[in-house]
């Protein structure tokens, strides 16, 4: 366990600089719009600053920040009917692996169709490198429920990559869960 740091401005600055990139990407996958993701992140970290001293264990700081970003996304979503834009072509072209460019695009398109209940745990595990316990903490559900969700999400993704026809069915089923 790392020492409790309290509400230190230099510590806040340092943590923000360290985690802004990954938190922005998480917000972007939730919001699917760069401007909205930036607004969500700015608001979330402003809230985080107000409650900075509440985190007693520095090892839990990162998961706590993800939780605040996620909560801010849902708070923002409840505020009103903001249209969700699909990621544009320029962003699609940023898929890094040119050797398998088509599959990369396909994976992105499939992930965009996944319902939030499936997408969130996958993004948290693959973007943040979180364990099932940490994902459970961010989502506010039990570890067992997280493992079930993660398991179903990967199974759905696998099915959708293999059989394009199953895509809409899986998305609909997941949305209902």
């Amino acid at each position, binding site marked *: 366990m790392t020492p409790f740091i309290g509400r230190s401005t230099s510590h806040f600055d340092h943590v923000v600089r360290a985690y802004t990139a*990954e938190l922005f990407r998480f917000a972007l996958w939730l919001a699917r719009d760069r401007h909205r993701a930036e607004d969500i992140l700015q608001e979330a970290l402003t809230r985080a600053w107000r409650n900075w001293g509440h985190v007693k264990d520095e090892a839990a*700081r990162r998961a706590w920040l993800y939780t605040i970003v996620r909560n801010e996304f849902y708070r923002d979503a409840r505020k009103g009917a903001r249209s969700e834009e699909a990621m544009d072509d320029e962003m699609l072209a940023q898929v890094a692996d040119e050797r398998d460019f088509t599959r990369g695009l396909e994976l992105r398109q499939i992930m965009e169709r996944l319902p939030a209940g499936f997408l969130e745990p996958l993004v948290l595990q693959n973007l943040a490198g979180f364990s099932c316990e*940490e994902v459970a903490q961010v989502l506010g559900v039990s570890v067992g429920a997280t493992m079930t969700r993660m398991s179903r999400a990967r199974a759905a993704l696998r099915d959708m990559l293999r059989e394009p026809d199953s895509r809409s069915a899986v998305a609909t089923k997941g949305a209902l869960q």
Partner: protein
Amino acid sequence: MNELEARRLLLADPRRLSPELKAAVEGSTRLAAFRDELMRTDEEMGRMLTANDVPEGLAERIVLRARYRDRSRWGLALAASLVAVAIAAPWYFGPRAVDVERAMIAHVDHEVAELQDNIGIEPAVLRASVAALGVDVRDAGYRIRHLANCIVDGREGRHFTVDGPNGVVSFLVLPAQGRSEAPELLREGSTRGVFMKRAGVTIGAFAQEGADRAQLERLMHQVFA
């Protein structure tokens, strides 16, 4: 553990295996192939998720907004401009090369939490992440404790820690040109660091007090192909 249960656990997290699950995977070619397939998809996902650009100066804007939210918009705009100038000035006028290595060691010295973190990362995940910066990483057999994308000196690098032969060692790969010659062992707080240059990137190896330059250089050459 039967195959169905093993598959369910692999689908939940193919990277972190309990001893029982590990034994099941090692004893079944079907399970091993299944895990490989999941790992490949996860690697693709990882690449895709980190491929989006982050708006320039976002971290600085967030810091300013959090601290000075109640001040007027004009005040905020002025402060943002001053910060932008403060950031840009050393870039244009300062001794750039030495700053890169100083910024790297300062980052590592400050990131106490990263030395404590021990979630365990698969070598393939690390390789894919660092490969995005054009650098190959070897699996030198050291357990990888932690991996993160970190902003250092305004650039996004990869920071990972391993259990080295003499304790935890941090590595930082940053897409920036450091000094032309390998610098002496740098010191910052209780952290010691050595550096090397690759095309377009600077790589640093860091350990706490007690580590010497030869140990760190040896580790760096073991880990980076």
